[in-house]
């Protein structure tokens, strides 16, 4: 009997709860801050009112058009319009949303092509993202970080041996137009996709996959389509997100795209994974930001760029980091690209980005036309932290290579005198020529690190001295084929041990002697 009384009582309290909730919902007031569009031009709007608008807040223009409050002035708010600004009319009402501009993030984006706001462009249906991240975020602080100690294998021998890149590093790729800047980045993405796939197939638990994000800023649609086709052909798309703000997109979208891509990368970093982001390219990004700033009537500085263009790039690139164990051990590696005009690295934007990044890979037109491709100028390219991230085997073979190449460059001027030189100098010149020949590599053809090590070991141990320079490439190709087909065990050992032990050295010696006997 007691239960029967209690139950209805219990029920009635729930009913009361629901009723009060309904009553609250009914009286719920919409509290808004509104303004009126005073002018619209060139993708920006000046809005009167909006007394409570916040910096970088999303504004709702109605009809699905959004804006971003960038200038908070005494009597008005300057906002860039994201989307079709021709639909915004003078006198129209604008509302604040109380939200910062955010994009979807997570693994659901892998394999997709999206715009600067994370909306799909590839016609593969909607994206069901795990989370959304604000586009602008404060970079991780010193407490969260640790030094770079794991490599990003680019698969490009010249880079992996001479200018190594570590996970969490920011390495600038700089050069004139058509010198292969994008190709280096695509190679890196393809190589890491291959490594991810192989580790998955082998079921390696401890391998940390590297996911890639390619951000195209102000590029021709045809170029972007080519890159995507290349990634698809190499099977790299399942590990890659492509963010596109092409040349026909508004300047506001081009300015936001790298920040959106960075937010997607940060999700991987925050969740203890590794990601690589390519900004292709930051010169066009600076130009887009200059346009936005000038139409917002911000004062201009050198080359008409606004005063905060340095901060624009530094806050973007500071978000690349290697987190320590306590914060999940994730990393975000950034490969910004800068296009120079006629090799001038002393222009405003290139010097800015050079000073922000942890090193640069400099590509030269001259080298490119001499047939040295990738056209990396080893002399002035540096990596400030990467060598800490090289695997031991690579360190063992590459340190000598660096010295050999430096000596070769010094002596190259004398090379014209030919036979007048002493035998030692001759030998150094010959070694240098062979190394340069080895570093030539066709595009979209990354070389696994164990093969790089074996080939460099061979040249260091004088196995190529008697091969003519013009036959070096053929020798390298056949050696690679020989090693992959017949000495797969040895390559696997190098990959697993990550160092050239005495036993591996002996096996390499045996393998090379066997190969030299058959090579013609």
């Amino acid at each position, binding site marked *: 009997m007691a239960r029967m009384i209690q139950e209805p009582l219990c029920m009635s309290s729930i009913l009361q709860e629901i009723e009060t909730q309904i009553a609250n919902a009914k*009286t*719920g*007031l*919409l*509290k*808004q*801050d*509104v*303004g009126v569009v005073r002018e619209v031009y060139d993708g920006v709007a000046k809005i*009167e*009112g*909006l*007394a*409570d608008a916040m910096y970088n807040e999303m504004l709702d223009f109605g009809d699905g058009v959004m804006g971003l409050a960038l200038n908070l002035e005494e*009597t008005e708010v300057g906002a860039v319009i994201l989307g079709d600004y021709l639909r915004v009319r003078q006198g129209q009402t604008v509302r604040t949303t109380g939200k910062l501009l*955010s994009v*979807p993030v997570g693994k659901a984006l892998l394999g997709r092509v999206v715009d600067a*706001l994370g*909306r799909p462009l590839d016609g593969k249906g*909607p994206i069901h*993202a795990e989370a*959304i991240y604000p586009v602008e975020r404060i970079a991780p602080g010193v407490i969260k970080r640790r030094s770079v100690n794991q490599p990003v294998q680019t698969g490009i021998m010249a880079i992996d041996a001479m200018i190594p890149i570590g996970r969490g590093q920011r390495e600038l790729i700089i050069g004139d137009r058509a010198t292969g800047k994008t190709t280096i980045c695509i190679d890196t993405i393809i190589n890491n996709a291959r490594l991810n796939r192989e580790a998955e197939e082998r079921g390696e638990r401890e391998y940390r996959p590297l996911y890639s994000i390619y951000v195209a800023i102000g590029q021709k649609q045809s170029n972007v389509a080519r890159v995507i086709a290349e990634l698809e052909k190499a099977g790299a798309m399942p590990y890659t997100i492509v963010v596109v703000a092409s040349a026909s997109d508004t300047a506001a979208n081009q300015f936001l795209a790298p920040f959106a891509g960075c937010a997607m990368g940060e999700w991987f970093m925050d969740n203890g994974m590794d990601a690589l982001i390519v900004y292709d390219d930051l010169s066009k990004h600076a130009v887009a930001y200059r346009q936005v700033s000038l139409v917002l009537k911000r004062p201009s500085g050198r080359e008409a760029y606004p005063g905060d263009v340095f901060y624009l790039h530094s806050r973007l690139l500071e978000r690349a980091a290697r987190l320590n164990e306590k914060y999940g051990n994730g990393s975000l590696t950034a490969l910004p690209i800068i296009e120079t005009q006629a090799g001038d690295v002393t222009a405003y934007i290139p010097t800015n980005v050079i000073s922000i990044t942890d090193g640069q890979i400099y590509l030269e037109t001259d080298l490119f036309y001499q047939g040295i491709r990738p056209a990396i100028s080893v002399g002035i390219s540096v990596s400030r932290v990467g060598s800490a991230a090289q695997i031991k085997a690579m360190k063992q073979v590459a340190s000598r290579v660096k010295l050999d190449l430096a000596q070769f460059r010094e002596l190259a001027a004398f090379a014209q005198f030919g036979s007048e030189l002493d035998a030692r100098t001759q030998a150094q010149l010959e070694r240098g020529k062979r190394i340069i020949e080895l570093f030539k590599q066709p595009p979209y053809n990354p070389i696994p690190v164990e093969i790089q090590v074996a080939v460099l070991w061979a040249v260091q141990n004088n196995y190529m001295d008697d091969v003519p320079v013009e036959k070096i490439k053929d020798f390298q190709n056949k050696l690679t084929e020989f090693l992959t087909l017949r000495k797969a065990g040895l390559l696997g050992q190098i990959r697993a041990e990550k160092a050239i032990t005495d036993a591996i050295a002996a096996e390499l010696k045996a393998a090379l002697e066997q190969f030299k006997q058959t090579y013609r």
Partner: protein
Amino acid sequence: MKIPKRSIRTAKQLFKSCVRDGQLDESLVRRVVTALLQSKPRDYLAVLMHFKRLVKLEIQRRTAVVETAIPMDPAQAEQLRDTLERNFGAGLRFVFAHRPELIGGMRVQVGSRVYDGTIRAQLDELKAAFGAEWRA
């Protein structure tokens, strides 16, 4: 019309001189305008244009627009005046409007701040929620 910086500065100074105890003094505003039109200093039209804009924004900031679906009874209106003046300070100008298209409830706008409790607003929000993407 492009208003020179100097005129903007002058207009701002004139505007400040018309504010007494945080309230815009209308008689002072009238005096400023007549004085400007009589003496006709350099760029006086530009100064007047900007001055007008500042006055307009100030009036908008201190105006409460109350819109209801059915006309408000005077007691209710008085109560609303009290509440709003308590929140936004004394000296608010009130405009009462009758708009049947709001269906029910009340919408109050003071400056750029809007409190919307109308059925129309709730319907619009519902409509937006159905048509919205994940972001909205």
